[in-house]
């Protein structure tokens, strides 16, 4: 309800007839009924207006109350801790508390937003005269009426000079001023700057002079944002947990393949290779279990009562994963059993496999290469022998890294080299 009079802006609960600020809707209505009773039409419309506004506010209130009650139920344990009341007259202060709180929050939010809008404009403003820019954004308080610093009550004189807050225009002394660096200011405007290059200090370190109140409000907002962005330890652990699960999968595929191959009497893979892969998987499983336990033993979050349930659920989930995928791995046969299997298989497999299968089924892996063999080549040595030694070295390296598909390919090659060598030696002897 703003009214123009002589080009001046007034705000508040203004009487439409005499333009006096009545401070609240109730006093305004009373004033109108008393002073301007002849204007019944206007009174009626005024009442309607107030009624509309009221119902709107009340509606919002209900919504507010709802969320507030929800909050309250979440924080039940705070109330549970308080001493139980004796029977008798009780009175709820929730309404009052809510009223006070809402006013404060609204005020703070709008004030903070104002500061941020001004800060944003200030950073965007072009021109070299910073003082002029600052004054164009907010009217600076007239210094002649202020004789003492409002924060520390020291009087201003030639040595203690007046300074203006660049964000709200208020006055303070130098020792009560806070300084906001431009980088910090940019962080506040766009929180994306939180990570990365913004941390690098600018060479020309420029600052903005602001008052304690403004600094406080900006700080509050920043710490709120930080706490929203902060990663909880549980997230960190859980990420690691998932990472291990992801890494373990190809190993499991490979192991199951090796197991089947071995149990069918095939000689593609060797027993001890499968054994060492199983050991590697077991180690991963232990690590997985350790992370599960770590999450379960995290301290309960004071603000999130259900967090402890989550911790336990993750722990149980991990245990189930380990049990179903890792502990259920088939037991490899002993060398004696394997021999037996091979014999049985060879009896059954009298007919040789006539199919030549150029494509092989393999587990997915990423690129791999063994380190170069740096044995100095002796020119006298047969290249075949040299190559056999290289391949042997590769096999060792592949084994160490659990690259058993590679081991198989390399062994195949080594066998071929050996065959060639024997042929060659035989030919030379003849």
């Amino acid at each position, binding site marked *: 309800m703003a009214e123009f009079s002589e080009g001046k802006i007034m705000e508040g609960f203004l009487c439409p007839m005499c333009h006096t600020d009545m401070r609240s809707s109730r006093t305004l209505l009373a004033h109108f009924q008393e002073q301007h009773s002849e204007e019944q039409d206007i009174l009626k419309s005024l009442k309607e207006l107030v009624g509309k506004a009221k119902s709107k506010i009340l509606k919002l209130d209900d919504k507010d109350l709802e969320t507030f009650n929800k909050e309250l139920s979440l924080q039940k344990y705070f109330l549970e801790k308080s001493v139980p009341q004796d029977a008798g007259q009780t009175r709820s202060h929730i309404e009052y508390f809510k009223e006070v709180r809402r006013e404060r929050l609204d005020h703070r939010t709008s004030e903070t937003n104002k500061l941020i809008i001004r800060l944003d404009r200030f950073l965007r403003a072009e021109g070299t005269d910073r003082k002029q820019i600052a004054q164009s954004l907010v009217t600076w308080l007239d210094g002649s009426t202020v004789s003492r610093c409002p924060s520390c009550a020291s009087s201003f004189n030639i040595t203690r000079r007046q300074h203006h807050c660049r964000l709200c225009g208020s006055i303070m002394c130098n020792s009560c001023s806070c300084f906001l660096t431009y980088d910090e200011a940019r962080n506040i405007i766009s929180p994306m700057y939180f990570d990365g290059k913004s941390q690098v200090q600018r060479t020309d370190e420029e600052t903005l002079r602001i008052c304690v109140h403004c600094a406080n409000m900006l700080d509050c907002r920043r710490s709120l944002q930080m706490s929203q962005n902060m990663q909880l330890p549980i997230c960190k652990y859980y990420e690691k947990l998932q990472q291990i699960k992801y890494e373990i999968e190809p190993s499991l595929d490979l192991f199951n393949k090796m197991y089947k191959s071995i149990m069918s009497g095939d000689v593609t893979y060797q027993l001890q290779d499968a054994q060492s892969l199983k050991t590697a998987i077991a180690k991963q499983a232990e690590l997985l279990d350790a992370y599960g336990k770590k999450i379960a033993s995290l301290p309960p979050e004071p603000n999130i009562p259900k967090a402890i349930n989550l911790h336990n659920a993750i722990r149980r989930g991990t245990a189930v994963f380990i049990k179903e*995928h890792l502990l259920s791995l088939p037991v490899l046969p002993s060398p004696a059993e394997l021999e037996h299997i091979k014999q049985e298989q060879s009896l059954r497999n009298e007919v040789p496999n006539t199919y030549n299968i150029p*494509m092989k089924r393999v587990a997915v892996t990423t*690129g791999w290469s063994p380190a170069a063999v740096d044995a100095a080549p002796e020119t006298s040595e047969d290249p075949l022998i040299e190559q056999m030694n290289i391949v042997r070295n590769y096999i060792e390296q592949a084994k160490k890294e659990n690259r058993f598909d590679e081991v198989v390919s390399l062994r195949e090659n080594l066998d071929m080299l050996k065959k060639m060598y024997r042929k060659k030696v035989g030919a030379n002897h003849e």
Partner: protein
Amino acid sequence: MENMATRTQTAQRPNGSAQGKICQFKLVLLGESAVGKSSLVLRFVKGQFHEYQESTIGAAFLTQTVCLDDTTVKFEIWDTAGQERYHSLAPMYYRGAQAAIVVYDITNQDTFGRAKTWVKELQRQASPNIVIALAGNKQDLANKRMVEFEEAQNYADENTLLFMETSAKTAMNVNDIFLAIAKKLPRNEQASGASASGQGRRLAEGDTGARAAGSCCK
């Protein structure tokens, strides 16, 4: 008849997402020494390039996996030494191979001549289904070029070879040539059927069963 050559697996991950086919191919690199065979593979497998790559002894072994649509192709690469002394080893590597890259240096006409000899040898001695690619390496030194692009392209066309000029140093066409080979391989195998190419490994039967059973979220 079931075409054994194209039999591939469909592995079931515990989370239920089906994986595509996975095939493994043996690929051999041939060419004069110092044309950049090792540099090409190193770029392909590790994404690295060394200005002073040591010369290869015997044959080096590397693996790399590429994905084509729903098919995963694993290359088992034998990078042979270019030096004369190791030439007796080469037949052992190209005989079992499903693909070969013959490399020459575009700044050296002799290496192109040697590449042609390798191609001839492959056509005579290797598996008839082998996919041969011709790579004119060191494309970054095009200002010192001694082998014209058209000349090589014409030769490749006559012999139905894949052809690309590559640069291990700038990575130009390196992945492309391997991908082109991967694309050509399965179709090639399908067209000609199971044949004498390569000594296949016996397949371990279906991998899918044991893991999927008992999975809580399949």
